[in-house]
């Protein structure tokens, strides 16, 4: 996803009352994170589960929060998603970078990239893949879900190899 769209994505979520962006960085969304750092709305944590815990605390204090991570971190987070976010029905948006989306991505991402859609489905975590044309519509879908008290995921595919 291009730099200007990533920055707009951040601004759109902030404008729609997502007050906290907590997570572990991913180069797939580095401009999104940079935009949040500039506005002092980003909290970088040591692990993805920690990020989810902090965001849950913020949501329990009535402050809307998003958790961002790479899909390797999504795999780390599965138990926290089932036994905290879903168990207590916490309305939270996950923003997940999809490594292994391209077949020639680095080898450590191949397997998780391949099974990611199945993992989301197995967790019953509703998700939409963001693209440069309809990202705003997908965001509004996620914002509506959290207003209804549900958690969901927005996925950014990694469309380049470095």
């Amino acid at each position, binding site marked *: 996803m291009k730099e200007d769209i990533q920055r707009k994505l951040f601004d759109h979520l902030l404008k729609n009352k997502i007050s906290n962006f907590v997570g572990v960085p991913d180069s797939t969304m580095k401009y999104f994170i940079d935009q949040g750092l500039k506005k002092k709305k980003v909290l970088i944590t040591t692990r993805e589960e920690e990020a*989810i815990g902090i965001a849950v605390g913020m949501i*329990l*204090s009535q402050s809307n929060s998003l958790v961002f991570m790479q899909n390797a971190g999504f795999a780390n987070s599965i138990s926290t998603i089932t036994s905290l976010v879903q168990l207590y029905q916490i309305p939270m948006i996950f923003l997940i970078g999809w490594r292994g989306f391209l077949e020639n991505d680095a080898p450590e991402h191949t397997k998780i990239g391949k099974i990611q859609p199945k993992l989301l489905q197995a967790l019953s975590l509703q998700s939409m893949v963001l693209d440069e044309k309809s990202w705003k519509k997908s965001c509004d879908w996620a914002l509506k879900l959290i207003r209804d008290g549900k958690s969901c995921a927005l996925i950014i595919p990694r469309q380049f190899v470095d």
Partner: protein
Amino acid sequence: MIRKAAMVIALEHIEFDDRIIAANGFISRDLFSISDTKPAFYMIGSMGLASSIGLGIALKDTGRKVFVFDGDGNILMNLGSLTTIGSLKPKNLIHVIFDNSVHESTGSQPTNTNFVSIEKIAKTCNYNHTFTTKTKNDFEKILRKIKKLNGPIMIVVKIQKSNNKKSPRINYEPLEIKERFMLS
């Protein structure tokens, strides 16, 4: 001192308006069985995350004190959170570790606090004040003292195993636990 006895002392020094986050396992169950007049956030799963949930609340609910009731096995699973807490330095966070050096809920298998001091780690991670105590009198003194101190504060309370006196499970549904906590 067993965990329940330590919790009874702690509760005497926690105001009604303060927040309590209780880690999963016997920590939540003991707290629930002692007193449920002030709704705490009782964790059922997600071991290790009490300190992180407490941090999130402390950052957003700055007018209230936030007490995290944690265990040694629990905090050892999320030591990274100490660096995040020590970097953000929430003044209203009080992190209590009930340290029996075992995973009591799963059959008392040993933890590394037999060899490593959590208090020293917290101090290195920039907690403003850290304490370790083994006695009821000393714990009470610390609880009185911290009323005038800024957090983050850690109190490691060395406790004995509770000898199979298991507190009952929490009889609220998770959704009820959340809603009671949010409304309190």
